[in-house]
Structures are given as C-alpha cells and as structure tokens.
C-alpha cells in the first residue's frame, strides 16, 4: 500500500523546482527577482506542508523506503526555515555578482529536497540518493562563480573528497547489506538485534559508514575540505553549506547509527568519541589562527560538529534530543552570522578579513548586535541559545560516563570564546576601517533582527524547541 501523502512536501518541492528551472529560461536577466520570489514561495509552501505533518502518526511509504516520524517533520521544517533565511540573505549578494541566474535558486531547491529526503529516509538507498542530490547541488553551487579560480579549486576539492566519502559510505553500506541481507534500516535493526553473533560484517561496514559520515560532517581528521570550501565558495554558498546540511547530516547519523545499527552502539560510541574530541580540539585551536572570517567560521563549524556528536555518543534518547537541539540551534545561529557577512559584502566590498568588521557598531548597529549575539551564542555563553545547546549535550555526555569528553569540551569552549570575543572586540571596541556601506534592504534587516532575536529568546525559553526534540525520541 503506497501512502504518497507522507512525501507530499518533497513531491511538491521537486515539481515546483522543475517549474522554476524551466521558467527561469524564459525570464529576462533583468527580472531576476521573479525567480527569487518563486523560489521563496516554493520553500514557504513546502514549509507549510511539512509543518502540517508535525504530530502525524509515524508511517512509511514506498515499500518501506520512506518514512515519516516525529523527528523528520520537525527537522524538515527547520531545514526549510533556514533555507528561506539563506535565500533572503543571499539575494542582494548574488545579484551583485552575476551568479544570480536561475540555476542558483534551482540548485538550492534541489539541495533542500535532498536534505528532506535524507531526513525521511529509512532505507539505505533512499538515504544515499538524498545525500547525493544534496552533494551534487552543492558542488555545482560552489562552482557557480566560474571566472573565480578559488571557487573552481574549492569546487574541485569538494567534489573529489565528497565522492571519496560517498564511496566509503557506499562500501560500508554494502558490507552491512552483506551481513544482514537488507537495505531497510528497520530490518537491519531487527536482524542485528536478533543475532548478534553474525554482526562482524556489519561492524566492519560500520567503520566505513562512520568515515563517510565524518567526511560529510567535516569531523577531524576528515575535515580538510571544510576551510577551503568555505573560503573558496561565494559567501552565500558557504552559508548554504554551513547551515541546513548540518541538520540533514544529524538526521543521517540518527537514521544509520540509531535506527539501523543501534545494537552496535558500543562500537560506534568510541569511534565517535574520538572524532568528537579531535574535532573540538583541532577546530577551536586552528580557528584562533585564522584572519579570514570564512575560514574562522569553517574551523568553528568543525568544533561545533564535535559538540554535536557529544549527544549522539551517549546513545540515549536524551542524548539524541540534545544533539538534535544542537543541530537546529547551530544552524540558525550560523545563519545569522553569515547573514551579517552577506549584508556587509555589498557595494563592491567583500567581507573576508576579520578587519572588515572593525567598528561595525559605529557603521551599522543592527548588524553589529546581531553578529554579537551570534558569536556569544556560538561561544556558549548564557543567556543565548548556544549555551543551552552546549548544556544539554554535555549533560548527555556526563550521563553516559564520558566525563573526560565533557571536560575536553568545556576547556575547548573557553579557547573558542577567545576568537568569538575577538569579533565582538573588532565590532565594538575598534574604529571603522571601511566607509559606511549602504544599509541592507528592509526585508534583510528585518530577517536579521528576527534571527538575532530568536537566538536570544530561544536561549531564555529553550523549551520551545526542546519539547519537539524530546518528543522526536520519546
């Protein structure tokens, strides 16, 4: 029995994306905003559709390849929300740089579809399809700025390493298939739970799956592509890579490691613990040395991936909800930070170096305050939402007897605080080096204000998101 309704948001999204693709061929270059608004409308309608699915009973469709549960509709809604923000902040930036052809938005929409498919996949093939749909869209987006050699280099690197990671993941999946005879994650779970003696092959496959996941997430030591891609890609694309895909990657980990291989948790706990510790240490230490904001944010992402893993490592529902909370809040906090960079990269300027932020408080108070809120939140200082995110993952790690990991985490977050504070210092204590940029357009300012306010308000009332995260693993 096929239950197409559960895939309604994705179906709508793909159809609409195809329409936008075709329509963009007929829309004149000077009339780009039509495509922008069409894409935003697509995202908004999809958001409404998937928001409407929150609270629906869990069910599967397409012969058990596709599932809807409490986690998936919440994560999809957040992915869409973050993507809407991402498109909004990117619009003026790409209009100025001649990368605002229809493809940009269409690739973005396909990427979002890919993420939604990853979130809903309960079958390894579906999961892989979603992942590749996302990855291929991102490779192309990085390379959109054809004339820029940095961008091409970044795209090349991203593509080659991404393909390698996909290969690892596929190899691992094939091993697991060999050991269990199934690609459906629920069936794999049942088989491994019933017959643990036969799990050697699955364990072998698990190692490769973890490598693939670590590549996609950018966890140390599989992080080398992250700074180069953030740096080489247009800032709007770096925003796209750095935000919503983290939510999707979280879902992928849950699907593979929890839904599928939870019985092997003793094995993957330790592997992830090592990845998490290295990511937190290397990410934070290397971020200090960066003078380029995008590279700094890239290393900061790496360190946050480490924190995100802390919750999953605990292998308890409480820990999974903690990581889910972390992924969501991280995505919209980073969105605000990139939004400010994009707002500054206009009028012939490109905010690339830390010094470009100097004296921002005197140039544009709104942007400076939003950036400050984002930085403080990423540093994990209360009362911003980033503190709560750190608190819940640390709590999960301590509950699972990973106290050493929690101590590494908090010690590294102090080191992290240094480079986030440096940004605040530049914006508030230093004098402006650049002339006034024209204020961002009203909708972008409003979006940033709401985004910044969300970081604070959700920090004071974290229960608003937390309830959904807990329900997802109840």
């Amino acid at each position, binding site marked *: 029995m096929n239950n197409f309704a559960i895939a309604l948001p994705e179906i709508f999204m793909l159809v609409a994306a195809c329409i936008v693709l075709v329509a963009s061929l007929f829309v004149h270059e000077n009339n780009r905003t039509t495509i922008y608004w069409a894409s935003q409308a697509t995202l908004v309608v999809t958001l409404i559709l998937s928001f409407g699915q929150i609270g629906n009973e869990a069910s599967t469709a397409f012969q058990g390849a596709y599932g809807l549960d409490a986690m998936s509709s919440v994560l999809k809604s957040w992915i869409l929300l973050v993507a809407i923000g991402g498109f909004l902040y990117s619009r003026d930036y790409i209009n100025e740089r001649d990368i605002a052809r229809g493809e940009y938005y269409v690739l973005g929409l396909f990427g979002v579809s890919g993420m939604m498919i990853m979130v809903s996949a309960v079958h390894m093939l579906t999961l892989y399809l979603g992942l590749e749909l996302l990855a291929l869209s991102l490779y192309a987006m990085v390379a959109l700025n054809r004339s820029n050699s940095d961008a091409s280099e970044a795209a090349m690197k991203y593509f080659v390493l991404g393909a390698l990671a996909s290969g690892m993941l596929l190899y691992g999946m094939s091993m697991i298939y060999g050991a269990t005879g199934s690609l459906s994650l629920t069936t794999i779970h049942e088989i491994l739970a019933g017959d643990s003696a036969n799990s050697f092959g699955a364990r072998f496959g698990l190692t490769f799956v973890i490598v693939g996941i670590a590549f996609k997430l950018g966890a140390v030591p599989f992080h080398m592509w992250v700074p180069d891609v953030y740096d080489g890609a247009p800032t709007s694309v770096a925003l796209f890579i750095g935000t919503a895909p983290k939510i999707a990657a979280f879902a992928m980990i849950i699907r593979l490691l929890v839904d599928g291989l939870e019985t092997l948790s003793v094995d993957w706990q330790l592997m992830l613990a090592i990845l998490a510790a290295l990511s937190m240490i290397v990410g934070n230490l290397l971020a200090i040395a960066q003078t380029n904001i995008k590279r700094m944010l890239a290393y900061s992402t790496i360190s946050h991936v480490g924190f995100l893993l802390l919750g999953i490592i605990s292998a308890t529902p409480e820990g999974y909800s903690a990581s889910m909370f972390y992924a969501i809040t991280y995505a919209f906090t980073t969105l605000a930070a990139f939004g400010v960079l994009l707002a500054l990269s206009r009028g012939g300027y490109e905010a690339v170096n830390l010094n470009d932020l100097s004296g921002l408080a005197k140039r544009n108070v709104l942007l400076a305050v939003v950036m400050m809120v984002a930085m403080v939140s990423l540093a994990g*200082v*209360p*009362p911003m939402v980033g*503190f709560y995110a750190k*608190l819940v993952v640390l709590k999960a790690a301590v509950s699972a007897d990973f*106290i050493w990991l929690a*101590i590494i985490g908090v010690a590294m977050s102090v080191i992290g605080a240094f480079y986030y504070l*440096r940004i605040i210092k530049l914006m*508030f204590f230093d004098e402006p080096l650049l002339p006034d940029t024209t204020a961002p357009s009203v909708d972008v300012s409003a979006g940033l204000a709401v985004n910044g306010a969300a970081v604070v308000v959700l920090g004071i009332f974290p*229960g608003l998101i937390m309830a959904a995260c807990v329900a997802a693993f109840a």
Partner: protein
Amino acid sequence: MPILSLTIWLPILAGLAIIALSGSAAKYTALGVAVLTFLISLSLWFGFDTTTADMQFRESVAWLPAFDVNYALGVDGISMPLIVLTTLINIIVVISAWEVIKDRVGMYLGAFQIMTGLMVGVFSALDAILFYIFFEATLLPMFLIIGIWGGPKRVYATIKFFLYTFLGSVFMLVALIYLYRVGGSFSILGMHMLELGAREQFWIFLAFFAAFAVKIPMWPVHTWLPDAHVEAPTAGSAVLAAIMLKMGGYGFLRFSLPIVPDASGELGGFMIAISLVAVVYIGFVALAQQDMKKLIAYSSISHMGFVTLGTFIAFMLIGKGDIDGVALGIEGAMMQMVSHGFISAAMFLCVGVIYDRMHTREIADYGGVMNVMPKFGAFMVFFAMANAGLPGTSGFVGEFMVILASFRANFWLAFLGAMTLILGAAYTLWMVKRVLFGDVANDNVAALTDVTSREFWMLASLAFFVLLLGLWPDLLANVMHASVENLVQHISIAKY
C-alpha cells in the same frame, strides 16, 4: 507579589530600553529604575524573617521540564544582604556616571541596569543552572563596559577578564551536571543533601574552586583583577569590586561548603594558606603600587583573603569542636563582604572624582589635594581609614571577627591575618598621605575644584553606610544568624 523576580527583571528589561535612549532621558530613566529597584529590594529586607534559616520569598516555575531545570528563586540570610547591597550600589553607579560619561550614555547605563538584575539573579537563584546562567551572563555586560568605556589597555584587560572567569566557571558547569547525575535534580538545596564520597567531593571541590577562586579572586589566580580594575571606567571598577567579587565569596558559602563539606575540610588548610598569602603578600604588593586604582585593586584582593580565611577557618574550628567560633568566622566573612562592598566602591569613586578632573591615576601626579579640595579630602581620609580597618567603621567589624575566629583556631594564623591591620593601614594611609597632604604639587592640582553636590551626596551616602555598619553591626549580623547557624550545623556533619 514575586519580589525577587521583580528585582531581577525590572532592571534587565528597563536596561534594554535604556540602551535605546540617549542623553538626559537615559540618565533620568536609569536613575528612576535604580531607585525603584532598590525600593523593591528593601521590601526583602523589611519583610525578612530573621528567625528561620529557610529560604524565603520563594518562587518556582518549571522552566525546562525535559531537563528538570526550574526557575527557582529564594533568599536566606546569606544572600539577602548581598541583594540589597547590589541594588544600593546600582543607584550610586548611575549617579557617578551622571556628567562623566559622554559617549553612548544610554548603552552605558543600560548595561549597568542589566548587570544589576543579573547579579541579583546570582544571589537569589536556587536552581544550579539558573545560577550558572546569571553567573555567566554578568560577564557580557562587564566585557562591553570595560571594552567600550575603559582606558588605553582596555581590550587586553577585558578579554583577560572574560576568559579567566569563563575558564573558571565552565568546570563548575561540569560539576553541576555531575551532581545532577548523582541526585537527579538541579536544585541547589537538593545538592546540599547529596551523599558524596571522598573522591567525588575532591573533584567537585576543585571545580567549584576554579570558578569561585577566580571570581573572588584568590592568589594566585587574581591577576585579571588589577588589569580589569585599572582599565574599567570608575563605575565599572566600583561594581566589579563591590558586587562581582562577592559572587565568588557567596559561591563558596552556597556551593563549596554545604555540597562538599568534607573535601572543603580536607583542603581547608590549603585554602587558609593561600588566603593568608593573599592577605600578607598582596598587602605588600599593594604597598608598591604607583597607580591608585591598582593599589585599591590589590587592597581588594587582600581583603577578600579575609573572606576566604573566615570561611575556611571553619573547618579547623570544627575539628576542635568550637561551633561558636565557626559561626564567628563565617559571619565575619559575610560582614567583610558587605562592608568591602561599600568601602571599595567608595574608594574607586574617590579616585574617579579626581581622575575626572586630572585624567591621571598616578599617585606621583598628585600632592596637597587637601588644600584645594577639603571636602573631598575629608571623605577620602574617612574611607581610607575604613579600608585600613579603623574601629567604628564597617571595615573593622568583619576583620576583627575573622581574626577572633582565627585566634580560636591557631595563634599564628591569627597573627598573620592581623598583619593586615598594619599592612592595610600602611598602603592606604601612605597613598592618602602622598595624594592629599603636603604642599600643592603642581599647577594642575592647584586648579582643582572641590566636589560638586552630586559627588558630595554620592560619597556621603556611602560614608553613612560605612558608619552605620561600623557602629551597629548587629543590624546586619541579626539577619544572618539563623542562616549561618544552619550552615554551620550542616557542614559539621560529615557526609560519608
């Protein structure tokens, strides 16, 4: 009526609004808010039941049910005086900024209002996570205050301040989470009752120590304080010394002692030793300072040494079975905290008064100020005497109680502690002598004008409280008795 919530959130929300204001609108709003907050907090003082050690004015709302975090507030005799002190100093802070701060005055006063609310939150939180949030959130306004309105080396000072305190407190966070894991609750009062083994207590004590020793600050983790004090604007130094340091002392009394009493006892000797180092060695360091603010900063560290001495001498006395002495030491520490709140704020404001006129803090640039500023000179001499622990001022009471308690434990400890009476007098009075007395040193000094009526009333009100507590210490001691007794009972019973 939720008095505590009102005392916390009125200044925070009003502070956010004041940031958007400018000029005199900001000043008058801030003053109004500060006075109103103080009046509200006075109802804590007058409505306080001194016969019980239970938490009073309690409020509790489930905040994050999924993780058992509650918005739980309440005060006892240890926290309530500190809250009133906070709101009182806040009024003085607004007045001190009146004509001095010209750049972004709305932001400046708004930040101080927000900080006041957060500090009241620190003293009234009964949930460990809530406490941690308030404790850490105070860093951000202070970071901006020092960084934006501070002196030439403000960036270095403020980042050092932030990272030092942040590093200390994150370990406390891990300890709090661990305690949650053991006891299943973030309630601070619940944590007091937890049965903990020796090894656990040892590590938890160290985590708390990291947070509170940096905050108070104890030697040798005090180095952020002189930098922060010197670079901070006058009001920033005053709040830092008067209130923020007390968060460390309060933390020892609220967390370290009752949650891990056995480890506190075991490491008590170590704590007493480094407290005495602070009292004696830092006293000598203060003697060598050329910069007035730095001198007062070191004097603060030295005085805070008395707070930790009074707190941890308790365990030596428990060993001797001298329960009265324990209470004496802890009450002395509390007295010292409140008294130091007034005196250090006053000293920093005194320096601020002449700094605003001369734009230098070097002692060598002054001399004979008394000749041109007699009223100011009188105040400064008075506060200097109080700082040196002159009987009749509040500075005497706390030090005397702590020294008495030390005597009951060990003569030599008391002897070393009492060195402060000599050293404190030496460095404070020598500074006063060089700044105030003698001939008029130079033309700049000759051109000074005496205190304005704003400055006069600001200093006079602090002088009033210094005298009040000096002459009538029972006013404060009465409030604390029941809670301190309870604490003493609690810590004198081993947990394992």
